[in-house]
């Protein structure tokens, strides 16, 4: 492997239940505002869970970006996850200096720009069939498959946002679509980090997108018993690490970051927003939906990330937790943090953004990396909302209820993502 490049962040963009851009999302999080509310996009009145982290209005695009969005839409090739990806990518790309159709001030040839996107596809096809069956009540079930409109297959694929972004930004370097459920965008960022660090590319756009607030998805996760059913108080439903937690809250959103070698960023005078120091990936090799009770799988990812970054546990000041609000995950993650950080775990703060925006699944790793970088920039830790009754098995400092200002800087931060199928991803982030 050639020289190891330091990797910095020069662009960030997101769209979440709290806002249509990174700044609004961060302001909502630090204010302890919840983006979880009753589902309005479809009739959920018969469901056990009737709320979600829903994006009520996708921010409008302008100029060439809007022309591009409309072109894909008119060709029946724009699904919601790709739309959100485009919105988040525009914000990140333009902040870094890019323009629609090319690198612009990012100043790198197309083949030296990589693209790494976390996304999911297949379950949407099932959802599309169900929706089609619902909408087209005169279509016999036996004809359902053939009745799907042209383009349905292509736009529902996990790789579709990758294809659209590569096309609209003219990216010609290595591209990949990472599909590891809830760790998809954490894994996508890790892969982009490795590409930039190894000098394969100068710049990479990396992130994730997901939109599971759909009838079939809400029903499916509800069937698994994974969702909170606190319909009386949706904003209080996601309560990671609380003794009374009863499941996670589905959300939707997208997050994108522009990663760049520090040398390249400095040479062109880019503003450095933060650093991605390292990443660690692992698998639990345990059970299909269960987290290992001892937290060892997540611990392997956290230890690997620290080793990859060349830092010690004592350098960490904050963990942006996966913190889903399920009984199993939160205990497993707590134990994993203790295993990875040892006694230092008692000296750090841990909080979960999912208490306010819900679980963005394939997008959560990227969005939470962005909010973590805002935490490091402002020396403010977003709270874990709704944590009122401590769980004796979750015994760390979770920043309950209100944001916390940290004097003297946070230090390094870990951002965790763990997923169905036992995949784990941890990122090591640092202020500029």
């Amino acid at each position, binding site marked *: 492997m050639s020289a190891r490049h330091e990797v910095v962040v020069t662009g960030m963009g997101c769209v979440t239940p709290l806002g249509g851009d990174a700044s609004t999302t961060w302001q909502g999080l630090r204010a302890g505002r919840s983006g979880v509310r009753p589902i309005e996009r479809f009739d959920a009145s018969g469901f056990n869970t009737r709320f979600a982290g829903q994006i009520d209005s996708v921010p409008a695009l302008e100029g060439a970006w809007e022309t591009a969005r409309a072109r894909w839409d008119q060709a029946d090739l724009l699904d919601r996850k790709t739309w959100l990806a485009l919105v988040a990518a525009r914000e990140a790309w333009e902040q870094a200096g890019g323009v629609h159709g090319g690198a612009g001030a990012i100043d790198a040839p197309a083949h030296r720009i990589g693209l790494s996107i976390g996304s999911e596809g297949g379950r949407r096809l099932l959802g599309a069939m169900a929706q089609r069956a619902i909408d087209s*009540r005169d279509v016999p079930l036996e004809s359902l498959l053939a009745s799907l409109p042209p383009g349905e297959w292509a736009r529902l694929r*996990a790789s579709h946002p990758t294809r659209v972004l*590569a096309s609209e930004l003219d990216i010609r370097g290595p591209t990949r679509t990472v599909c590891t459920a809830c760790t998809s965008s954490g894994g996508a960022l890790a892969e982009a980090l*490795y590409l930039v660090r190894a000098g394969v590319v100068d710049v990479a756009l990396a992130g994730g997108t997901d939109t599971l607030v759909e009838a079939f998805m809400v*029903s499916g996760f509800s069937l698994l018993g994974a969702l909170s059913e606190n319909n009386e108080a949706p904003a209080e439903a996601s309560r990671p690490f609380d003794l009374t937690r009863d499941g996670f809250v589905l959300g939707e959103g997208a997050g994108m970051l522009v990663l760049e070698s520090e040398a390249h960023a400095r040479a062109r005078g880019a503003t450095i927003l933060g650093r991605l120091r390292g990443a660690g990936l692992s*698998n639990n090799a345990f059970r299909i939906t269960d987290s290992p009770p001892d937290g060892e799988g997540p611990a392997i990812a956290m230890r690997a990330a620290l080793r990859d970054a060349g830092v010690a546990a004592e350098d960490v000041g904050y963990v942006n937790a996966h913190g889903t609000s399920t009984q199993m995950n939160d205990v497993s993650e707590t134990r994993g943090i203790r295993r990875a950080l040892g006694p230092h775990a008692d000296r750090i703060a841990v909080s979960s953004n999912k208490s306010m925006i819900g679980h963005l699944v394939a997008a959560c790793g990227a969005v939470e990396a962005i909010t973590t970088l805002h935490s490091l920039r402002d020396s403010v830790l977003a709270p874990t909302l709704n944590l009122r009754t401590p769980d004796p098995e979750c015994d760390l400092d979770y920043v309950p209820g209100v944001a916390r200002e940290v004097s003297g800087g946070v230090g390094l931060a870990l951002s965790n993502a763990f997923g169905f199928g036992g995949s784990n991803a941890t990122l090591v982030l640092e202020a500029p």
Partner: protein
Amino acid sequence: MSFIVGVGVASPLGLGLEASMEGWLSGASGLAENPLPHEGLSDHLAGIVPGFRPRKQLPDRKAVKLMSREAQLLVHAAVEACGGTDVIERLELEAQRVGAFAAAGYEVTPLDEVLEMFRRSREPEEPTKLSLERLFTVGRDGYNPLSPLKTLPNMALFHAATALGLRGPHLALGSSPAAGLAALSGAHDALADDLCDHALVGGTDAQVELYRIHYLEEAGVLAGSSPAEGAAALLLAAAPDAESPVRIVAVGLAQEPPAGPVPGDHYSSVSDRGETRTGLYTRVLEEAWDGGAPPVDLVVADLWGLPTRDAAERSALATVLSHAGTDAPILSTRPRTGHMGAAHGVFDVALACELLRRGDGQCALVTAGGSAGDLGAVVLHKVSA
């Protein structure tokens, strides 16, 4: 640099590496009449892995019912590549230092399960119609809650990693033949970066299924290749073993300028006539030569039987092979295996590796492309004993 120390294959040519190689070397075809309804489709053949009985042939019979066909195929290939499920103990490895990287298929729930759910959701008074209310009450009770988990593309890799006890870096990539080479690239880089000591690389897909056949028809793929299923797996190591003298010298990925929003034209619109491919293959071959590899004398190419795509590929290969002064034979596997989707890239690497091992050359270039314009290329070199 990394070394291929194990290979496993489940292809229409045969179940297992030896059977697949026998099929390949004998000139056999793995294609037969598609057992699924295919009236009106462009292609009536399909490639199905012969003799595959998951409940009898996979290590954990109980786990089989939780696996999609892709997962079953990948587990079979992965166990073969690792020489058994005891690879961690037998090779005295650290589980967290063994990674797992794979490309998986189109992530869909088996149609029969969906239709069963829909059948249960019919309006009693109008049995051809679906009732929303019943879908989420009676219908969903007829649906295995774990079924959606079969559709996550990382589940195939989860089952393979769990069967083998692998706990290191873990990455599942989206459904394209080039995704297999992206998985290979991820593993190769992880070994070089000391993130792990060994890595399983896999690709798997099961396209002989109604959903996928309809997709392939809409996308125009069936005009060139038959739908097929299969899986391939490689065990990579940072150091060679005595029996596996094939090393990976260079891996590269690139993005062709994808077709814009053209409905129904996802595979054939290669807009740059092979220029991106030429650039990628040139870079990978230069890296291989810098790494001490001899000239390429075998190519397994990204040929789909689709005129525009294949013209771009042939043009790129002609340019780089001419520049290298070699007239290496160019193989295409799809005419005899069908299109194995996300399995195809790794399958072609496995085939090239075995051909080199058996003396059919010293250095091979394998290329793969996907529907989103993603491209991959790898150079293998048989190291002298």
